[in-house]
């Protein structure tokens, strides 16, 4: 069985010369839940973009056995779903239905099959009966759930999320944790919120200055206060004695 994600020696430098990723190697097995943790500017978001084939760097990125390259980007993107940090950028269609249907339509799903898929996904994320709503009429928590629904509708094997809990109140965050905990897909979550990452992920990958500095079981990494402090992070309150 191929790895869900396999990255080997990936390097990427922004056009202004800033090194964003330097010799990043990472292997994620199917069904794993991995938290990419690190301070702002560590390269977490850039790594997620590289997984989706948005960045052309050196090195190798393989998703579900397929190497990310120009010719197979469409195939790659039907395997890995990307949820951006700001739901307003993820939800660009006039109604929630249109937004959730956007991906499946591009995959060639139409008619009754499309309608039932959209309705099922909306039910799954707790937005049943809201398909006619415009995205700007949703609350922050609903927008986040809707953003995840847009990706779930494509039935990807892997979901990559960038700071999914940002700007959420505790109730919405709780709802999001419950939603994500119920997913079967491989999850790669970039987050600065250690409590959120600790609740959802069994594995943590620490990134700093464009490199992976630690990789292991989430609990073992996150209780290491020295390591966490060194990389501008903190031990999650749930792990504090």
């Amino acid at each position: 069985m191929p790895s869900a994600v396999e990255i080997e020696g990936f390097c990427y430098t922004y056009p202004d010369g800033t090194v964003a990723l330097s010799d990043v190697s990472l292997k994620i097995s199917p069904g794993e839940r991995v938290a990419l943790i690190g301070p702002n500017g560590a390269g977490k978001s850039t790594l997620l973009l590289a997984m989706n084939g948005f960045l052309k760097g050196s090195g190798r990125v393989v998703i579900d056995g397929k190497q990310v390259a120009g010719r197979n980007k469409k195939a790659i993107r039907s395997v890995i779903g990307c949820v951006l940090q700001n739901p307003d950028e993820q939800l660009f269609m006039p109604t929630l239905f249109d937004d959730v249907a956007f991906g499946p339509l591009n995959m060639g799903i139409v008619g009754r099959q499309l309608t039932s898929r959209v309705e099922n996904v909306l039910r799954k994320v707790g937005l049943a009966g809201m398909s006619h709503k415009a995205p700007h009429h949703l609350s922050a928590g609903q927008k986040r759930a809707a953003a995840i629904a847009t990706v779930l509708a494509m039935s990807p094997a892997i979901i990559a999320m960038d700071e999914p809990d940002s700007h959420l109140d505790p109730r919405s965050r709780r709802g999001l944790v419950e939603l994500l905990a119920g997913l079967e897909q491989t999850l790669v979550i970039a987050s600065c919120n250690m409590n959120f990452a600790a609740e959802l992920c069994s594995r943590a990958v620490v990134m700093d200055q464009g490199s992976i500095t630690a990789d292991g079981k989430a609990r073992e990494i996150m209780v290491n206060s020295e390591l966490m402090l060194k990389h501008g992070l903190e031990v999650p309150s749930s792990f504090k004695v």
Partner: protein
Amino acid sequence: MHHAYIDKFAYQDSPVHRLDSRVKLVAVIVFTALVISVPRHSLSILVCYAVGPFAMLVIGGIPIRFTLKHIVIVSPFVLVLAASSVLYGKAPVAVEFGPFTVHTTTGWLQFFNILAKFVVTMLALIALVSTTRFAELLRGLEKLRVPKLLVVQLGFLYRYIFVLIDSVHHILRARAGRKLRYLGAKAELKTAGSMVGSLLIRSINTAERISMAMQARGFDGTFRTHSKMRITLKDYLFCAAACSFLLLIYLIIRPALI
């Protein structure tokens, strides 16, 4: 942040709300063309035309206050245009209101004609957007074969105009929080320039990320949409009523009043 969405009453339910957006769109376009075609010195016929959109607003449960407010907001542009006609039309003319006769100029008559046409067409436009969800309107435009690119652009415009307005409010608030005194015209202009620049860069970044979100969901340059629209009996009845109303005015009332 809360915004004054133009379609804020479009989520209500009424017989007008339940009509197919294509039928309403075509009716409003034909209505507008007929109103515009009224001769420039006629006024009374425009009052008859106003009955149609007024009925739609009343049946649709759209508050008159909301309607008037939106007409007033847009009116300055038309007022400037209408005022210019007063300067050019100096020929004297007598206007009869029943037993009364008012002596004025063709310019003033044209001024009121432009204003009345503006109010009547705005009534129709507000009746349309207040009883039709914006997404339905876009779907209607698409079904009426308006170029898809234009429809998509309109959709994006409506989706992101409020996000942009929010950004403007945030920037203005940040400035107000730190601006303790008037800095002089030059410095104020420089600050305003920086703010506009920052807004432009933010918009470009947002556009880039939206493009990424689209590509991540398989977008390859072709917009695919899913829409099911069906003309039903109530739409045919509306068509018949709208046609009868417009024909009655055009063939019988209009020749008698002009």
